[in-house]
């Protein structure tokens, strides 16, 4: 029993806790001449908070993540609800069709979106063919909107699946009871189905927000200069800029936001009747 | 086998197979079982009977070893087993949900106890065949539990528990999941297996009639303590407490009652509705007593000339072979239930009419009132 504890906590400490701790500590160091000085200072945080461009990038990214979560919540709920209303054979098919993209390479999906949004991309070809525009629209790629659209598409399954699962958990008897007590379809939806499936939506929104706010691949590949996000800012500290402590400090802020969102989601997504 | 411990026990009692002394189980501040003593005799069918929450399953789990007792000792055949690991205890359990291994066939399930002991193939097969024969499952050895009916699962679980030839089998409400007809059938079956094998059965149930049908002795539990132990007849005719009396269907409780005279094995008691004679001596510590009368003990008019009382009819329900009459006493607001054989010739008494009913002194009991 003791050996078990040692192995498990040993692993957790060695590969999860200590790395996280060292990253937290790193945020308080600084760099002189491309080498890290191991002396605690708040300089990184002061820099981040006082530097306009860091601050705007931070809030721009959070806002973008929030927008993506909101859009996906609406799209995702509609889709999950649609799937839920299908007969069982259809449902299974639709759910698997949703899970397949989830297991596809993230980077590939982003790349594929580039093929859709680009100047010579599918969307432009369709718009041209339909005569909606006269020449290709370049505003579709390499800006923040492209990042929004790409993240929204790529993260959609993370929204639909949790909502669908919570819908599926609603027992039929509960719906019958609502109907039996005189609730119409819309009333049943508003008073029974929606409250019972909301935890799924909250989990989905949490996933979407956390993943969107920390992402750097999509902005890197479809964002262009305008789509410079916080994730890219962090990533660049470990590349060309080579300022790991600053990168760690930037990430600490991101982690605080992520933990706060996870915490709020746990509170909201775990309503009283389930505790 | 015989040893010095027999001396202190009550007369005509052999060394018990299972001897529990001062066994208590606490969950935090909650006493699931108050320290209690219990002896299980070799070869008997002993049922622990009680409502849910009475601690009966906890007691069984403590004996089996699934629940560590907070205090007290358990001896099996004279050996202390309180600290013995589950897998070394010399007896087996039939679980409430059967706990059949879903990934094993009936044969594999039944042979499990022998396999983990490294029994040889030949011997193992013989033993499994005979165990399957006892429970009548010879044909179904290759089936999986999910392909069996409830009764067949039950038989498999029993065969599995018997395979290591334990001297004691613990059964935790094994019939609870079966429907009424099958349950009666399984009661007879379990009883006959127990008789023929001579294995001691310690059986837990909340069903009074099940306990009465099957058991040699019944141990009634309530709120973590033993309320009374005795043969089914004892408990039925001589309940010691209001709780046992009503558990065994004596739903008419007249209390308070006071002993006014006791001689020649007849005790006279005074109650709010009259003075009655009760067969048997007065219980010791005779305060806080109640008089329990079975509904079927009542007779109308001259049919039961003793212990008569005048009661007003409230309602009459015909339930086939029997008729249940609800009655009320005029002064005290006491209500009574009377069960009589339905009489095709006579019309039932009208509500509001007054009847004189009586009951036999041997068909009532003086019991202690509520504890605490």
């Amino acid at each position, binding site marked *: 029993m003791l050996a078990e504890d040692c192995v498990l906590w040993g692993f957790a400490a060695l590969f*999860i806790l200590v790395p996280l701790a060292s990253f937290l500590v790193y945020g308080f160091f600084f760099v002189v001449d491309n080498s890290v000085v191991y002396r605690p200072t708040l300089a990184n945080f002061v820099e981040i908070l006082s530097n306009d461009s860091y601050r705007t990038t931070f809030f721009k990214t959070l806002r973008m993540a929030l927008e993506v979560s909101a859009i996906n919540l609406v799209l995702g709920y509609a889709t999950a609800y*649609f799937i839920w209303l299908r007969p069982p054979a259809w449902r299974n098919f639709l759910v698997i069709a949703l899970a397949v993209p989830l297991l596809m*390479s993230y980077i590939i999906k982003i790349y594929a979106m580039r093929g859709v949004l*680009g100047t010579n991309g599918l969307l432009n070809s369709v718009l041209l063919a339909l005569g909606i525009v006269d020449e290709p629209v370049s505003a579709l790629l390499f800006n923040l909107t492209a990042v929004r659209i790409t993240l929204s598409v790529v993260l959609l399954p993370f929204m639909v699946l949790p909502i669908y699962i919570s819908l599926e958990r609603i027992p039929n008897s509960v719906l019958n009871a609502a109907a039996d007590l005189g609730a119409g379809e819309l009333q049943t939806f508003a008073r029974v189905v929606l409250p019972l499936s909301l935890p799924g939506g909250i989990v989905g929104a949490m996933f979407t927000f956390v993943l969107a706010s920390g992402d750097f*691949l999509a902005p890197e590949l479809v964002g262009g200069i305008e789509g410079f996000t916080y994730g890219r800012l962090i990533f660049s500290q470990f590349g060309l800029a080579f300022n790991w402590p600053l990168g760690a400090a930037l990430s600490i802020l*991101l982690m605080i936001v992520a*933990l706060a969102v*996870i915490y709020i989601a746990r509170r909201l997504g775990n309503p009283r009747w389930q505790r | 086998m015989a040893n010095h411990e027999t001396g202190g026990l009550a007369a005509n009692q052999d060394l018990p197979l299972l001897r529990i002394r001062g066994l208590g189980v606490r969950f935090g501040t909650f006493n699931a079982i108050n320290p209690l003593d219990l002896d299980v005799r070799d070869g008997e069918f002993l049922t622990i009977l009680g409502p849910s929450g009475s601690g009966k399953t906890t007691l069984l789990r403590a004996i089996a070893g699934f629940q560590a007792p907070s205090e007290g000792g358990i001896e099996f055949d004279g050996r202390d087993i309180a600290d013995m690991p589950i897998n070394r205890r010399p007896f087996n359990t039939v679980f409430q949900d059967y706990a059949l291994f879903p990934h094993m066939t009936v044969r594999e399930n039944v042979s499990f106890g022998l396999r983990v002991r490294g029994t040889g193939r030949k011997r193992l097969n013989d033993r499994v065949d005979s165990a399957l024969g006892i429970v009548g499952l010879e044909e179904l050895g290759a089936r999986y539990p999910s392909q069996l009916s409830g009764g067949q699962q039950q038989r498999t679980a029993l065969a599995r528990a018997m395979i290591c030839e334990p001297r004691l089998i613990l059964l935790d409400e094994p019939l609870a999941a079966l429907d009424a007809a099958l349950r009666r059938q399984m009661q007879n079956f379990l009883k006959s297996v127990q008789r023929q094998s001579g294995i001691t059965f310690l059986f837990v149930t909340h069903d009074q009639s099940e306990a009465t049908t099957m058991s040699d002795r019944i141990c009634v539990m309530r709120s973590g303590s033993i309320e009374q132990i005795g043969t089914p007849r004892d408990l039925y005719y001589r309940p010691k407490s209001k709780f046992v009396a009503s558990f065994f269907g004596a739903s008419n409780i007249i209390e308070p009652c006071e002993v006014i005279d006791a001689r020649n094995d007849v005790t006279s008691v005074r109650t709010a509705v009259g003075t009655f004679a009760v067969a048997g001596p007065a219980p010791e510590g005779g305060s806080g007593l109640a008089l329990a009368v079975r509904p079927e003990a009542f007779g109308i008019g001259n049919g039961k000339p003793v212990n008569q009382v005048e009661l007003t009819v409230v309602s009459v329900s015909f339930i086939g072979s029997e008729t249940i009459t609800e009655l009320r006493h005029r002064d005290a607001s006491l209500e009574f239930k009377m069960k009589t054989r339905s009489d095709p010739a006579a019309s039932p008494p009208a509500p509001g009419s007054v009847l004189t009913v009586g009951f036999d002194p041997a068909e009532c009991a003086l019991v202690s009132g509520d504890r605490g």
Partner: protein
Amino acid sequence: MKRLRLLDVSLASVSFLVYLALYLPILLVFVLSFFSMRRGRVRWDTFSFEWYARLFSNESLGEALLNSIIVGVTAIIAATVIATLAALHVNARPSSRSARMLEYVIFLPFLLPPIITGLSLLIYFREIGVSRGLATIIVGHAVFVLAIIYRIILTRLNALSRSLVEAAQDLGASRLQTFRFIILPNLRMPLLTAGILAFALSFDETMITLFLSGTDGTLPVRLYAMMRVGFTPEINALITLILGFSIVLTVVFAFAWRRSGGTDNNRITRI
């Protein structure tokens, strides 16, 4: 009645668009992988398998694929052992505070943005003097997939009636025998399911890997490098192959999941 119809139609159209958005880009990549391009325009008259043929002569891609497989297999074996131990541990003492803490810790790398998992391991390995390579990627992937494997196994363990373990012990089985004869056979499907899922995740993992890879990159890292350069049919061909592989894995996973009773939500929630 009419209003409900309208609602149905709008639900259906939103869902249609969602599925379209999920599949169209991928389909496009697939189609384009058979054609050449000139000045950014597709030449529809050039259908060929040329780009696939070129892939097979690209040695660095083969190396990256091999790396991906080595990383995936090793990480999953390690993560499965730890996750199974952890699940058994937590299942045996559901109310223990230490067990609950352990569960939180296991979930951290999965819940936090991958960028944080990646860079914390990067900093850690640098500080303890481990240089970047396959080993560091393996650790990153193992930590990342740990939570998923753990969750699947724990769900199955919790669904196993407690009395099964008690029954085995009651019949004389030791702890080891109970694990070997009762628990392990019931974990076979969940282990397979978790393994497939974890391999698919590891095979596609990019963000953590980018932080932890030195000169030996996995396939997605190699892809990332190629993509930054441009949009070529060769990439399309490679992507098509990877997607084919992912789809096969997903279908296998879906079957394994259903056979292990995973879609039976009631079974999971009831516990």
